């Protein structure tokens, strides 16, 4: 047995094992980095309104459709308002509306999905048929119809998209809950007399919250694009309010004269969506490497 100690192989085992662990560590660091960047952006977007160089709502007839300059970094729009300041001012609305919508649909969808998946039965059938119907109307089309009818306001935009967005979370949560419900330890819990509520809270939810959160982070970008699309069509916030999608919408008619007023807010959307997508993807990669 002493021989085993001398065996140089014993020390060799380490680097073999750590190869996948090292990859996992790298992904973890990457995800943390993105999480920090995303939270910085969130914090910044919340306070951005205090960093505007000019009043985002002040019109200036003398400086209409001016190109980018030291005073107006991204130029001015049709009414002489500073595009840069309006982008900063709009960050809170655009980003927070997205995050709010994702959180609410995540919450509603997960609760409905878990209950349907755990209990099954008639209610489950009805809810699932209902989501079938909602999903068979193209999402943006339904949202346009709803937002158009409710009238332009941020709240109505969120409602219009929220009507369908919870369904994907509900379906995912339902399929996980159905799988978990059949695991042996859930049966064991039932036999020891745990209540359904207790089982759901302590066993079902913790086992599905991971993949659900991964899915939610991946959805942030898409949700932002949907909101921007509706705002662009003039179904978002009411005109004077600064919001990226509606800024593009307003400036579109004079694209030829002041392209900056169109492209600056559009690029702000693009960059933010890319950022969220990077974050979502790294979270997803991390989750996958944890599974492997």
């Amino acid at each position: 047995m002493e021989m085993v100690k001398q065996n140089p192989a014993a020390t060799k085992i380490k680097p073999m094992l750590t190869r996948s662990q090292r990859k996992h560590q790298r992904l973890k660091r990457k995800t943390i980095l993105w999480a920090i960047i995303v939270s910085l952006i969130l914090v910044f977007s919340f306070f951005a309104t205090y960093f505007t160089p000019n009043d985002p709502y002040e019109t200036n007839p003398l400086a209409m459709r001016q190109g980018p300059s030291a005073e107006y970094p991204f130029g001015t729009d049709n009414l002489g308002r500073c595009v840069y300041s309006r982008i900063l001012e709009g960050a809170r609305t655009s980003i927070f509306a997205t995050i709010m919508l994702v959180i609410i649909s995540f919450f509603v969808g997960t609760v409905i999905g878990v209950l349907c998946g755990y209990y099954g039965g008639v209610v489950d059938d009805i809810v699932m048929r209902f989501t079938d119907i909602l999903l068979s109307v193209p999402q943006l089309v339904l949202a346009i119809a709803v937002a158009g009818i409710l009238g332009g306001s941020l709240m109505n935009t969120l409602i219009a998209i929220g009507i369908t967005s919870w369904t994907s979370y509900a379906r995912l949560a339902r399929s996980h809950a159905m799988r978990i419900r059949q695991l042996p330890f859930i049966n064991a819990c039932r036999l020891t007399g745990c209540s359904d509520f207790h089982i759901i809270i302590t066993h079902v939810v913790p086992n599905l919250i991971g993949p659900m959160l991964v899915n939610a982070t991946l959805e942030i970008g898409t949700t932002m694009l949907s909101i921007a699309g509706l705002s662009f069509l003039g179904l978002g916030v009411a005109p004077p309010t600064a919001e990226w999608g509606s800024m593009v919408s307003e400036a579109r008619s004079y694209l030829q004269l002041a392209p900056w007023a169109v492209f600056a807010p559009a690029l702000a959307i693009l960059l933010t969506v890319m950022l969220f997508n990077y974050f979502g993807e790294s979270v997803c990669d991390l989750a996958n490497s944890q599974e492997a």
Partner: protein
Amino acid sequence: MANNLLEINNLTVTYGDFKIITEVSFSMKPGEIVCIAGESGCGKSTLIKAVLGIKHLGAFITEGNIILDGRDITHLSTEERRQILGTQIGYVPQNTRGSFNNIRTYDVQYQETMRSHNRKFVRSDAIDCFDRLNFPESSKLLSYQPWEMSGGMNQRMAIALAVLQGPKLMLCDEATSVLDVTSQKEVIEELAKLRDELGWSILFITHNLGVASHIADKLGVMYAGRMVEYGNIRSVLDDPIHPYTRRLLAAIPGKDRKLPLGLEGRPPLDGAEVEGCNFVPRCQFCEDKCSTKPYSLDEIVPGHFASCAQGRVDL
């Protein structure tokens, strides 16, 4: 030695920057069945990968060479390699789903294989071949897709395709180890029959010494990247020389319901890099010289080689 079909000389194979096999040498005559046995991880599958030489497999030959029918095939170009694969070297993998695309019919896959070597695919030839191998439902087989078939049948379809392609050397990588006993017997008998009829040489990798004793002419035993014993099957099985082979034979589960004798410890991961005997840490007979004497496979009895530094130890 010109009449050897396959000669492997001093082969060293790495996987990434990890040495898997060192200094393995042996040769095969036409019509010979050679079994290579050993624990998982000893490098026996890597040996097959090295002979196949498909670059996707990642096995990289750093030293030594492989000679097939007088031609050095160690470093062929991708296209040269493709031309000898199938036509000169056949392969049956361990995974019964590993030969065919699961969701396309055998018919198209047989066709694609033959056409890749500019040969015509004649359906009746294939059906004749199935009949010769006693496949059930031979006329309908081609229209099936692999997922509709059992694992054993898939392996047999792969063998049948090899019959059509006509290689001289077959490589079988644990081709029967995931099959149930009946299909295992079918496949093995098929291979033995084809050796008799077509003169195939078969390099058969297995951890099942029972299977080996059934069909093999020669048996090689590998341990941690090295060939520790090689010789005629009877000679090796009845009169093993290397302590590892002895323990391996003792580990075969018997019919007497006794648990087989195990072996303490694990094979070293870097066994291929050790200069001396790499079985030393687990060997009950080892002496000081065992760790220092460089590895060599010596002929102890005529036709029977072993790498034990002490030659033959008496029990």
